[in-house]
C-alpha cells in the first residue's frame, strides 16, 4: 500500500507539468498583450508598457519565458500575479478554501441525496420510481447551473425569504491557526444545492442500477430467507456492494465540481477559485491561471487516489496497487 501511494504521488509531477504546459501554450498564444493589461490606463504611455514588459520578462522569446516559468515552478515558486501584484500562493490561499467548502458540501449533498433517492427507487421497484429517477438524472445533467441557481434564489431567497440571496456571510468562524474563515451555513445552502443537483440524479440512477445488479445475488436471498427485512437486505447488505461504482462517480464529480464551480460562484457571488481563474484568463494573468490549473489538477489527482483508498474500506478484498488495478484486485 505504501509503495502504491508513493508511486501515485510521484506520478503526479509529470501529469501536473504536462497540464500546466498545455495551459501555458494556450494562454500565451491567444490575442491580448498582458503588458498592456498590467499597465491599465498607463498603457497610454508606450514607454510604460515597454518597461512593464522588461520588468516581467515579457519581452523575452517564448521558449525562454516558458523555461523561466518552469524553473520557478520546480523550485516551488508559483510566481506573482501580473494584475494583483500578490503572490499566486496567497491568491490560492484566499480563494481555494471557499471553493473547497462549496465542493465538499455539494458532493456530500449529491451523494446523500443520490444514494437516498436511488435506494428508495430500488426499494419501491415500480416503473414510476424508475421514471422519476431517470427524469431527475436527465434534468440535473441538462439544466444549466446558472439557471438553476437563479431559480433557487427566486424561490427560497426572494419569494420565501428563507435564505440569503448570495454571498459568503461575514461572521463565519475562523479556523484556528489559519486566516481561513468558514462560510455561514445559511449562505452555503443554495450554492451547494445548485451544484449538487447536477450529479444527484446521476448518482440516484447509478445507485438504483447497482442495487438492481446485486439484487439477485445468492447472499441476499440467504439474508432474506433468514428473516431480514427488505430494508435491511437492501441497505445493510446490498448497498455496500453496490457502492463501488457510486464512489467512483462521486470522486469524479468532486474533481469536476472543483473545476466547474465557476458558474455557481458567479451567480452567488461566492469568493472562490472558479471566478478568479476566469477573470485571470480574461486579463491574461498567466501566473494566476497556471497556479490555479496546477492546484486544481493536483487536487483532482489526489481525490482520485483517495477514491482508490476508499474502495479498500468498502470492500477489504480490493487491494489498491495490486496487479490488475484497484477495481479488480481481489485476494
Amino acid at each position, binding site marked *: 500500500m505504501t509503495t502504491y501511494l508513493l508511486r501515485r504521488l510521484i506520478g503526479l509531477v509529470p501529469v501536473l507539468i504536462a497540464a500546466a504546459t498545455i495551459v501555458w501554450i494556450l494562454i500565451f498564444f491567444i490575442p491580448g498583450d498582458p503588458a498592456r493589461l498590467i499597465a491599465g490606463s498607463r498603457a497610454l504611455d508606450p514607454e510604460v508598457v515597454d518597461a512593464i514588459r522588461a520588468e516581467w520578462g515579457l519581452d523575452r522569446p517564448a521558449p525562454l519565458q516558458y523555461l523561466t516559468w518552469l524553473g520557478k515552478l520546480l523550485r516551488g515558486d508559483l510566481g506573482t500575479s501580473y494584475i494583483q501584484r500578490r503572490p499566486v500562493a496567497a491568491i490560492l490561499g484566499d*480563494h481555494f478554501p471557499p471553493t473547497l467548502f462549496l465542493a465538499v458540501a455539494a458532493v456530500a449533498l449529491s451523494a446523500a441525496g443520490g444514494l437516498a433517492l436511488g435506494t428508495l427507487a430500488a426499494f*419501491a421497484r415500480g416503473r414510476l420510481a424508475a421514471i422519476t429517477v431517470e427524469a431527475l438524472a436527465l434534468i440535473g445533467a441538462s439544466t444549466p447551473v446558472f439557471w438553476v441557481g437563479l431559480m433557487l434564489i427566486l424561490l427560497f431567497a426572494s419569494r420565501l*425569504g428563507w435564505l*440569503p440571496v448570495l454571498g*459568503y456571510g461575514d461572521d463565519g468562524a475562523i479556523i484556528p491557526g489559519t486566516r481561513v474563515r468558514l462560510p455561514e451555513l445559511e449562505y452555503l445552502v443554495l450554492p451547494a444545492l445548485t451544484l449538487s443537483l447536477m450529479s444527484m440524479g446521476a448518482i440516484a440512477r447509478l445507485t438504483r442500477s447497482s442495487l438492481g445488479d446485486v439484487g439477485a445475488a445468492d447472499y441476499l436471498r440467504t439474508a432474506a430467507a433468514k428473516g431480514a427485512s427488505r430494508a435491511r437486505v437492501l441497505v445493510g447488505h446490498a448497498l455496500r456492494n453496490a457502492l463501488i461504482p457510486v464512489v467512483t462517480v462521486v470522486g469524479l464529480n468532486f474533481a469536476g465540481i472543483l473545476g466547474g464551480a465557476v458558474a455557481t460562484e458567479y451567480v452567488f*457571488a461566492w469568493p472562490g477559485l472558479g471566478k478568479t481563474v476566469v477573470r485571470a484568463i480574461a486579463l491574461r494573468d498567466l501566473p494566476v491561471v497556471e497556479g490555479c490549473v496546477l492546484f486544481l489538477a493536483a487536487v483532482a489527482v489526489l481525490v482520485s487516489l483517495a477514491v482508490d483508498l476508499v474502495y479498500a474500506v468498502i470492500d477489504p478484498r480490493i487491494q489498491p496497487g495490486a496487479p490488475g488495478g484497484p477495481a479488480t484486485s481481489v485476494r
Partner: protein
Amino acid sequence: MRQESRARRPRPAIRNVALILCAVAGLAVACAGRETSAPSADRTFRFRIREDPPTLDPARAIDQLSEAVLFGLFRGLVEMEPATMTVRPAVAASWTVSDDRLTYTFRLRDDVFFHNGRQLTARDVAWSYRRLLSPATGSPRRSILEPLAGAAAFVAGTTSELPGLQTPDDRTVVIRLAKPFAPFLSALTLVNTAILPAEVYEDAGEGYLRAPVGCGPFRFVRWEQSNFIELAAFDRFYGGRPEIDRVRVRIIENRQSALQEYLAGGLDSLDEVPEDEDPIAVTLKDEIHRYPFIGTQFIGFNHALAPFKGNAALRKAFNHAVDKEYFHRTLHGEPMANGIIPPGAPAHDPSLPGYPYDPEKAKRLLAEAGYPGGRGLPPITLWYNTSEDMQQSMQKIQADLKQVGVDLRLKSVDWAAYLAAVEGTRDRPGEAQMYRFGWYLDYPDAESILRPLLYSSNAGPAGNYSRYANPRVDALIDEAMGLVDDAARVQRYREAQRIAVMDDAVWLFLSYAQSKTLFKPYVKGIVTTPLGEFRIPIDRLRLEKGPA
C-alpha cells in the same frame, strides 16, 4: 407471497407523505412574501461593485471600482462639489491664485487628522505630491502634477529637487507652475492627489495596499477578497463624523443576482438598473435616480485603414445612416450625441448640428464617397467588447447600415483581445476598422477628452485609437491649454470640436452617457453628480426608518 404483500404496503404511505409535503410546500409558497426592505440596524450603507478594486493606492487608481472605495477613505487639498461641479475647499481651508495663474497658495485647515491619529501638516502634502510624481511610484496620473515648475527634471530623475512645490510653514503649501494650466484646480480634485501619511506609505512591503490610511470621512476596516470591503465612520473627520456608521462595499459580479439582493434588502443602493420596459423597473420607479454622466459613447473609425482613410464623406454617410434617437427612445435612455464634449463640461455646444438620422442623405453621401448603394465597399468589421447590452446596440447599427446598402460584420471579443485589435502599436494600426468606445471625463474640462482622443501625437495606444490627425485641431487644443481666460478657452475647444465633428466626422457619434442608480427609499441626502454614481458622497447620506 408474504414478501410481496409486505413490499406493497409502503407504497400508499410514501405516496401520502409526498402529497402532504407538496401541499405544505404549496401553502408555504402561497403565504410567504418577500422580506420587507429595511436598513440594517447599525446604519451600515451597503452598495455593490462588480469586482475587487485593482488597487487601493490612490496614486495608482484610475478606475471607478477603486474610486468607489477611495473617495470614502481619502481627501486632497480641494474637492469637486458633486452637484455644481465646482472646486471647493477640502484639506485646504482656502487658496489664492496669482494673476498670471502660475502660483497657487493653499492655507491648510488645522483640524485634519489621519486615521492613525496623527495630525496632517503641509509636509504631508509635499510628501504625497512628490510620491505621485516619482517614477518609482509608476502613477498613471503623474500628469496631474507635471505642470509644476521643475517637474520634468524630477520625473526624469536628474534631480530630487522640486522647486514648484514649497511648504514655508506647517499650514501653507505653495505650488508654482511652469506655465499656466487652466484646469489645474479641477485636476487636483482627482483622488490621485490624496494626502497620505508618509509613515504608512513608505512601507517597502506595500502593506498599505491591504490597509490604506487616509484622512477621509471613513477609515478602512477589512477587505475580504471577492466578498466585501468594510469601512467605518471616522470620528475625527474634519467635516464632521458621517451619519453612516459603516460602509459595506459588496463585490457581486452577476447583475441579476445583484438585483435580487437589492430586492431582498441586502443592498441599499445598486448601480445596475433594469431597463425601462422591464416590469421590475416599473415597480422600482420611485427608487431609480437618473442623472447625466459626463461622458460620450461613440463608434470610432480607424482613419489609418480603408475604407475610412481620407474619406470624410463615407464617415458622414455612416453617421446619417444610424438612428441614434433609437438608443434614447428604446435602448438606454441616453440622449443623442451631437458632438464630442458632453453636457456638464463648460465647452459643451448644444448648437452643434451633429448628424441626425437621414437615410436618404446617407445614400447620397455614400455615392459621393465612391460607393453608391454600398457597392464596392470592402468588408467592414465593427469590434466591440462582449456584453449583452452592447450586442443589442451593435445589431441596431448593423441593421441601420444594411438599410442603406452597407454590410457590416460584428465581432465580439473579450477585453484583452478587443484592446489588441483597437489600439495596435505606436507604428502599426490595429485591425479594427470600427470599434465601439466610450470616454468619461475625470473633471469638467474639455481638455480631458479632446487631448487624449484627438491629439495627433497620441495616435494609437496613447488614446487616439482612431489615429485622427488634423494640425488645426492640434493647434486649437494647444492654444486652449495655455489660455487663462475661460471664455477664450471654451471658444477654442468648441472650434476644435466643430472641425472634428462637422468637417472630419472623426467618429460615429452615438450618445451622451447617463447614470441610473437605485436607492432604497430610506436612503436620504443623495447628491447625484455628473461625475458618476461612485462619486455620490457617501458621507452625506443618512439612513432613516432604522434604529440608531
